[in-house]
């Protein structure tokens, strides 16, 4: 059994690495067509992502919310649902955090942080959990529902920060009231990366254990493999789907909380920067495995972190990293066809 798990992991690593290399070649040709030296671009990607202490810190700061939004797709995907509502769940989590944070003024710091985290998790969890319920009880397609709910969440955010909870002392950009200063959690000890990283890593590890080592995780995998088989086995399918959606949404909501209490201090359209959509890509690259999400999120965080440097040095448009991510996503999905094709990775019993 252990051998099979190892072989599967090796197969995923080899195929994903090949996909990444192919994407880099394709991206190199793409920038070369615009008169940019591809090798200089690769060099800059590495420099901006992993070479210096500052670039590593930027990478990890980017990776923190990505881990959590990736879980929003990965956990429901294990139960057989394709959830792409991480963007909206993050926004709802951020909004819930601000609203609760303003109410809690005066409450001791430690208690506050826990309550704010719970608020964010409830905001995101209920948002995506509702989609799970709609899918189970009404047959509503979860892909389209979550896409629409992203737009609805952003509209709610824009509505609230343009009036009802707007901080009118900020004139440059519409933003909500700020949470009290003392609730900000700041950075991790010894490294200039905010606490969201620790929260993201812990969430990934906890969910890895939940998925791999508990009956619940096993049951979710059965459900994802074959819903009818799960039904025959007498599993409470509806509750399980809704729980998986709630967990996923709660993770994305927590990402919103961390963006508020560790970075911005308020809610604004700074929450809507594509963390949710990048999270979908990470979940697919990690093959919905919460542990692999940590590593892939750092890789993708590196691409996002080096984006700014890439723009400045080569005068490329800011959508350059989106093109790279899109290419990677397309290639990774196409590479799904390769699984199980190579004898080398198949166990003796498989």
């Amino acid at each position, binding site marked *: 059994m252990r051998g099979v798990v190892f072989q599967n992991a090796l197969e995923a690593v080899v195929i994903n690495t090949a996909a990444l290399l192919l994407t880099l070649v394709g991206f190199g040709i793409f920038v070369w067509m615009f008169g940019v030296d591809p090798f200089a671009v690769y060099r800059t990607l590495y420099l901006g992502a992993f070479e210096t202490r500052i670039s590593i810190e930027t990478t990890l700061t980017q990776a923190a919310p990505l881990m959590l939004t990736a879980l929003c797709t990965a956990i429901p995907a294990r139960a057989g649902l394709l959830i792409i509502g991480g963007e909206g769940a993050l926004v709802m989590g951020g909004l819930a955090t601000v609203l609760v944070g303003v109410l809690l003024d005066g409450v001791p710091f430690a208690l506050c942080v826990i309550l704010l985290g719970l608020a964010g998790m409830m905001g995101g969890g209920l948002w995506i959990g509702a989609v799970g319920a709609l899918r189970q009880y009404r047959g509503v397609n979860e892909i*389209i529902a979550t896409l*629409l709910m992203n*737009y609805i969440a952003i*509209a709610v955010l824009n509505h609230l920060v*343009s009036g009802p909870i707007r901080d009118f002392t900020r004139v440059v950009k519409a933003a909500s009231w700020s949470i009290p200063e003392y609730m900000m959690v700041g950075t991790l000890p010894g490294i200039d990366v905010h606490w969201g990283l620790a929260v993201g890593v812990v969430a990934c590890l906890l969910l890895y254990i939940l998925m791999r080592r508990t009956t619940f995780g096993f049951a979710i995998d059965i459900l994802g493999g074959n819903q009818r088989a799960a039904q025959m086995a007498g599993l409470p399918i509806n509750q399980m789907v809704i729980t998986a959606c709630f967990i996923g949404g709660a993770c994305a909501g927590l990402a919103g909380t961390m963006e508020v209490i560790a970075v911005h201090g308020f809610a604004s359209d700074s929450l809507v920067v594509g963390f949710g959509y990048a999270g979908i*890509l990470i979940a697919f690259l990690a093959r919905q495995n919460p542990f692999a999400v940590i590593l892939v999120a750092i890789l993708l965080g590196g691409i996002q972190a080096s984006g700014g440097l890439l723009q400045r040095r080569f005068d490329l*448009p800011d959508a350059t990293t989106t093109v790279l991510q*899109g290419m990677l996503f*397309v290639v990774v999905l196409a590479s799904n*066809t390769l699984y199980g094709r190579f004898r080398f990775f198949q166990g003796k019993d498989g």
Partner: protein
Amino acid sequence: MEGATQLGWWGVLIAVIGGALRVSTPYLFVSLGETLTEKGGRINLGLEGILMMGAMSGYGIAVLTGNPWFGVLVAGCAGALLGLLHGLICNLPRVNDTAVGISLFIFGTGLAFFLGKPFIQPSAPRLPDIALGAWSALPQIRSALQVNVLFIIGVILVPVLSWSLKNTRWGMILRTVGDSSDAAKALGYHVNRVRTLGTMVGGFLAGIGGSFLSLYYPGTWNEGLSSGQGLMAVALVIFARWNPVYCFGVALLFGGATALGPALQTVGITSNYYLYGAAPYFLTLVLLIHSSSTKHSLAGAPSELSINR
């Protein structure tokens, strides 16, 4: 029709109808294209990316050549190319077509922003429109009935596609492939080839829908141009039961919903602007919830479609 000053709520209604005629065109093209794609048994969620590529390439070509119609054509071709990419990747075994759609959504949007950067400043020639409201003395009615030529082409496409799907050989093949790939194989058709073609034609129409955004209404190219019309069109097709005629009706409904916010602004209701802006998404969601069921698959749904299995 006493006077233009006393229109009040009638003015809102006229503005919504005018908006419906104007805003519905991209919905109409995208949903007609997606109907063809889905009738063949594939779902393309990348239409949002295709819409952006169409908007960008149409605008860019119109700026460079000075001819908007050439832009429309190129926009369609760009859409067809992305559709081809979707089709080819989905032809590989064990590849999930909905996920590929999402990846094309990100890729197409990124590519459009990347290539479209130089075209944000220059202005392109606009597509012509026809004044159907010339009979009226009311300026509101006249501006509401300024109908774009692309809209009229879309309206003509509705019965044409509806009839072709039912009666032509191509329509039959497409529907057979969408309803049972085994039956299609037994009849000797290349299932993957037909589906790829269906996705390409769908992409072509969606690209044209995108060029409408940049070349007529709102009529500029910028990164906030499309706000999910491509995604909503996918839901719209489900609600329209894969029927081109219903697509037309639903597209008008969505256009009207999109126009609600700006129309209310004309009578001085400016609060809750963003909430009215969310009306089409909310409407889509409500319609989707209303029209879904766990008990049976939807009438008219192609049975090979992955979201129905």
